[in-house]
């Protein structure tokens, strides 16, 4: 390696170790993350496409704004963050490790000057007696000291929670662990969606990336129901699901209720209640106002069709018995909406047993008589399906992060050094956190030392 290459490498290394880069990355990530909260992500709603120009659309697409959290530049920033983190740790960890495993046990003159809590106690007594007394006090009040003898003086060193210095690195590691969990999930897991009509079973899932995935077993929807509060607001969406292996219900997975916030997991694949709908076919007839020349018209549940005059008709809701809603009437009925040629929309009800009332709709149906014949309808349940083998890694990372942050902030590596010579005891200490609290502790300790050393003096 030439000098030049070496210094090039060195400056690159310094760059990745710098906290300036950390600040830059954290603030940049904060700012650019805003984009994805303003620009819609994923499948673009048609209303949005109407509001922006073609050029803007192309630009946003080219920049990856519609899936920005997976765009190359966002991933690049996260990678830089990871490298920065690793580099910084490699640079600092050995020093921290040394502080923990090879503590400075002797308070020398140079070291003494760096301590903000330093007191000298003048007392009588020879060094070795003082040493034993101070050691006993330190043990009782703080921690068992380590004693070294140099140049006729005794050095006592005691410390508490030295490992708390590692907490910051645990936090940093946790960020990487979470990233790893997320990567595992995106490589080996998937998210998908299935609709299952009541009474039917499904064994394949359409993933978000539009791949069909074979579950290896099947799920049957026995029943779907919606419960309401007295005020009409929905209270509970419930699917009764059965897992089938080779067509047979699996023990323990037979008729399991699945509601929002309470999913079903089988073989690492989880099914979440997500939506629901109706599924079915309805028959209408279109005839002359007097009932002649009937023609049949089939419309799917929530589907639409064209009337003979070309206007569109949407089926909104049907019931096998209208009397629940309109006492005095009976039989099946359907609520439809017609899009008239003049651009207006008209909503009305079509009955099966009431041609007289159906005739009132003639103006909206091109002068033809529209009648409902009935239909068959099933509920279907919409389930979100997810498999994520990386999720445990993510939780381990989260736990490490929470515990690490707690330790990093609220635990402190406290060290106390005492030098005992004939007639003088010099006490010094420092703490990695909460210096204020440590100072108060030190003041109390010094008072106690003064009291006890002098009281034993007078014995």
């Amino acid at each position, binding site marked *: 390696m030439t000098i030049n290459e070496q210094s090039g490498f060195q400056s690159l290394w310094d760059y990745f170790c710098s*906290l*300036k880069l*950390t*600040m830059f990355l*954290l*603030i940049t*990530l*904060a700012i650019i*993350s*805003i984009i*994805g*909260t*303003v620009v819609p*992500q994923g499948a673009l709603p048609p209303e949005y496409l109407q509001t922006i120009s073609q050029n803007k659309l192309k630009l946003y697409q080219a920049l990856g704004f519609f899936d920005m*959290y997976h765009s190359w530049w966002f991933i690049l920033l996260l990678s830089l963050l990871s490298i920065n983190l690793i580099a910084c740790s490699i640079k600092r960890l050995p020093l921290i490790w040394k502080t923990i495993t090879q503590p400075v046990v002797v308070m020398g003159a140079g070291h003494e000057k760096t301590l903000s809590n330093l007191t000298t106690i003048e007392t009588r007594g020879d060094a070795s007696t003082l040493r034993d007394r101070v050691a006993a006090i330190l043990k009782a009040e703080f921690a068992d000291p380590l004693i070294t003898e140099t140049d006729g003086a005794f050095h006592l060193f005691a410390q508490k929670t030295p490992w708390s210095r590692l907490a910051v690195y645990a936090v940093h590691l946790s960020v990487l662990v979470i990233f790893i969990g*997320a990567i595992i999930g995106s490589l080996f897991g998937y*998210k998908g969606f299935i609709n299952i009509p009541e009474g039917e079973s499904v064994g394949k899932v359409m993933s978000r990336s539009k791949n069909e995935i074979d579950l290896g077993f099947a799920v049957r929807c026995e029943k779907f129901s919606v419960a309401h*509060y007295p*005020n009409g*607001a*929905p*209270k*509970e*969406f419930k699917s009764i699901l059965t897992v089938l292996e080779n067509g047979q219900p699996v023990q323990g997975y037979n008729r399991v209720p699945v*509601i*929002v*916030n309470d*999913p079903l997991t089988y073989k690492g694949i*989880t099914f*979440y209640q*997500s939506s629901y709908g109706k599924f079915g076919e309805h028959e209408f007839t279109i005839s002359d106002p007097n009932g002649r020349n009937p023609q049949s018209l089939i419309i799917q549940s929530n589907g639409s069709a064209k009337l003979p005059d070309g206007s569109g008709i949407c089926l909104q809701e049907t019931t096998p018995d209208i009397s629940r809603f309109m006492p005095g009437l009976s039989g099946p009925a359907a609520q439809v909406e017609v899009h008239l040629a003049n651009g207006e929309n008209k909503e009305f009800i079509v009955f099966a047993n009431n041609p007289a009332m159906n005739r009132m709709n003639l103006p909206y149906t091109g002068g033809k008589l529209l009648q409902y014949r009935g239909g068959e309808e099933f509920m279907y349940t919409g389930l*979100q*399906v*997810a498999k*994520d083998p990386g*999720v445990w890694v*993510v*939780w381990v990372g*989260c736990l490490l*992060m*929470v515990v690490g*942050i*707690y330790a990093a*902030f*609220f635990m402190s590596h406290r060290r106390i050094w005492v030098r005992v010579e004939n007639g003088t005891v010099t006490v010094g200490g420092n703490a990695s956190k909460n210096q204020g609290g440590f100072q108060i502790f030190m003041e109390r300790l010094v008072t106690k030392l003064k009291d006890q050393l002098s009281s034993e003096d007078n014995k």
Partner: protein
Amino acid sequence: MTSSLLFNITTFAYLVSMLCFFAFVASRAKVLGTAGSAIAFGGLLLQTIAIGLRWKESYSLGIGHAPLSNLYESVVFFSWTIVLIYGLLDLKYRYRVIGAFVMPFALLGMAWAQLGLDSGIQPLVPALQSNWLLYHVITCFLGYAAFAVACGISIMYLIREIHERSTPANDQSIVATFPSGRVLDDLNYKSIMIGFPLLTLGIVTGAAWANYAWGTYWSWDPKETWSLIVWFIYAAFLHARITRGWAGRRAAWLSIVGFAATIFCYLGVNLLLSGLHSYGG
């Protein structure tokens, strides 16, 4: 006694407390500072009872759930957490005057809730019927509250700094009651030290809930993303202290920007952007 009456009295107490603190800053009469914080503590106690009562009232309506389910309830809870965190700081450090910069946030919350928001007790929609709601909301809001306190302290820091630059220090100036710049900087850091772990826990419990309820711990929904933005800003703040040149004024600004982002995360996202959280919890 209804919770609604108690909430009104609480609002009034916070108003009086704030005015006492303002008078304290202007007059430097110690008794006013003591009165301000005593009234704040009284208000906190009343509000605690009121929240408990509201919880009980929801059970008498047959739709029992913790009062953390809509915008009104969350704003009230936010005020409560702000006064709580201020109270803890006051008990520990006794810098009364901080109340003058923190109580306005609590008062603003209560006044908005009582005057501008629908206070009816509604049943819980299916998406919120989970114990995770409790863990998630409580940790997030305690974190937000600590950031509110940090923001108030940062404003004090900046006022002090500007004031000291323009006029020589004297006993009569309005900053005479303020703690020193170094102390304010330290208190700012201490508040964020309380807030950051709580926000982290809030994000983690949110992710755990999302994973439990929908099968994705993170879906880059605007609320999630904004909470991450807030988290990045305070992470930057924490590292700022290790880098020279970022303590003091810049740290104070970072703390204020962080709180602005927090408020956007809490309210702006619900009111201006769309997403999973738009029901206002």
